């Protein structure tokens, strides 16, 4: 356990170096969030009755999405791992007395978490300070907030486990482009990053909510504002738990199977 923690810590500190870049990123995310909200506002103005969420719920959703982008983005990969796979450096990693899956998992967690910490504080601070219809509102009660935190942690595991699958596929096929594009593009839509899932047509939404992608950002961001509550919330969180375990276990077994077949070319 200790060795994985130190991998995590190294990554965490490493990414913490780029503070200026993070500041520029914060400005970008802030402008981005604002434009998104303005666009939804226009739809709200044209037909408030058709709006499937409360407006303040949507605003909180967008700001939290921007703040925790590094936690929940499915297109965010560790370039080092791809590099190690295509250059053959992965052979060194296999020679170490560590489980490759856990090591990569810890690496990804470290990078994402330090990025998220750097970025979420300024974004949230401004988003809370904004006047009423534009800012983040507090969650309806304390229990909701606790559920939000648990759900966010689960979402983090689901997202990293999903990304891990791409590394495993890359290990098997060398070229990472295909799965990367798929996960980068279609899954963003299915995760509720392009538009929140309540805006989907109802029938499609019922299917999409069962997919692992919906256990990413969709659940915690909607729980926070009270859009998902009661039995629906419990169901969503159970779904998250299921996918977190299933994806991690599946990825681990798959990687182990791939390791056996792995051929390191030349050297």
């Amino acid at each position, binding site marked *: 356990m200790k060795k994985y923690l130190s991998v995590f810590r190294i990554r965490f500190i490493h990414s913490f170096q780029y503070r200026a870049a993070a500041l*520029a990123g914060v400005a970008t995310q802030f402008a981005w969030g604002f434009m998104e909200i303005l*666009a939804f506002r*226009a739809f709200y103005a044209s037909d408030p009755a058709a709006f499937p969420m409360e407006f303040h719920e949507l605003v909180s959703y967008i700001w939290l999405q921007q703040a925790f982008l590094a936690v929940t983005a499915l297109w965010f990969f560790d370039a080092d791992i791809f590099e190690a796979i295509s250059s053959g450096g992965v052979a060194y990693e296999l020679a170490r007395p560590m489980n490759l899956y856990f090591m990569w998992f810890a690496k990804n967690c470290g990078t994402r978490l330090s990025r998220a910490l750097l970025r979420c504080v300024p974004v949230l601070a401004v988003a809370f300070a904004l006047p009423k219809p534009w800012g983040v509102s507090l969650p309806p009660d304390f229990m909701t907030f606790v559920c939000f935190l648990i759900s966010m942690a689960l979402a983090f595991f689901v997202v990293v486990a999903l990304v891990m699958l791409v590394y495993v596929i890359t290990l098997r096929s060398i070229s990472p482009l295909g799965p*990367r*594009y798929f996960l*980068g*593009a279609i899954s963003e839509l299915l995760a509720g990053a392009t538009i929140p899932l309540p805006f989907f*047509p109802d029938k499609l939404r019922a299917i999409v909510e069962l997919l692992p992608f919906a256990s990413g950002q969709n659940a915690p961001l909607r729980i926070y504002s009270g859009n998902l509550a009661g039995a629906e919330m419990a169901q969503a969180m159970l779904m998250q738990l299921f996918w977190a375990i299933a994806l991690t276990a599946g990825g681990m077994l798959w990687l182990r199977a791939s390791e056996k077949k792995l051929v390191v070319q030349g050297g």
Partner: protein
Amino acid sequence: MRLYFKYLGIQLRCQMQHKGSFFLNMIGQALTSLTTFLGVYFMFLRFHTVAGFTFEEVLLCFATVLLCFSAAECFGRGFDAFSRMLGNGQFDRILVRPRNEALQVLGTNVDFTRLGRFLEALAVFAYAIPKCGVAWTWDKAATLLMMLVCGTAVFIGLFVVYASLCFFTTEGLEFINIFTDGGREFGRYPFSVYGGRVLKFFTFVVPLALFQYYPFLYLLGRAQHWWYCLLPPISLLFLIPCRFLWKLGVRHFRSTGS
């Protein structure tokens, strides 16, 4: 100009060496914008109109911006990836050659895979042009053509700004993405949707609305003034400060040394 076409030929032949990865890359590019399209589609299934525009009208806008952006990204890739050129010393080599440096930057980096989005934009046009209810006359067709040409130029101008700033920071500044990637993403709706202040900003500061919103109103026959159709060329004025900034950057250039 002859030199540039020669560059284009070399780049095309070079990228065609790896056909499989080329087309996969291209499909990937198209997929990312497909999600944006689906997002717009789902929104309109629910709302039918936004700020007085229908789905087909918005699609016309969406396709215009997407086409301009992808063309700019394909041919202006040199500026988009400029921080790498500065970092590895490639720009030093360019400076010693007796040719215009901007031309060389453009010519040595052309990414034809970006045309994946271009094709997608064409497909959306093919659907939207007959359906959007515009009576196409020669002046409207000419306006649309001007929108596309000037839009591409403005996006390339933005890439130039991005590249010029690299002279001062070496690293690329993520902030400019708001106007490039953001321009593409938010340009899917006419800029008036975002309210008056945003519209003013995109008219007078970064003139994306000059080739997107105003001539678009003219196409729909909702323009208050007939001269809205002449606004796209005005947006080309934006290229003057871009060029100035580029010159300033080149003069300020200090080699990174590798």
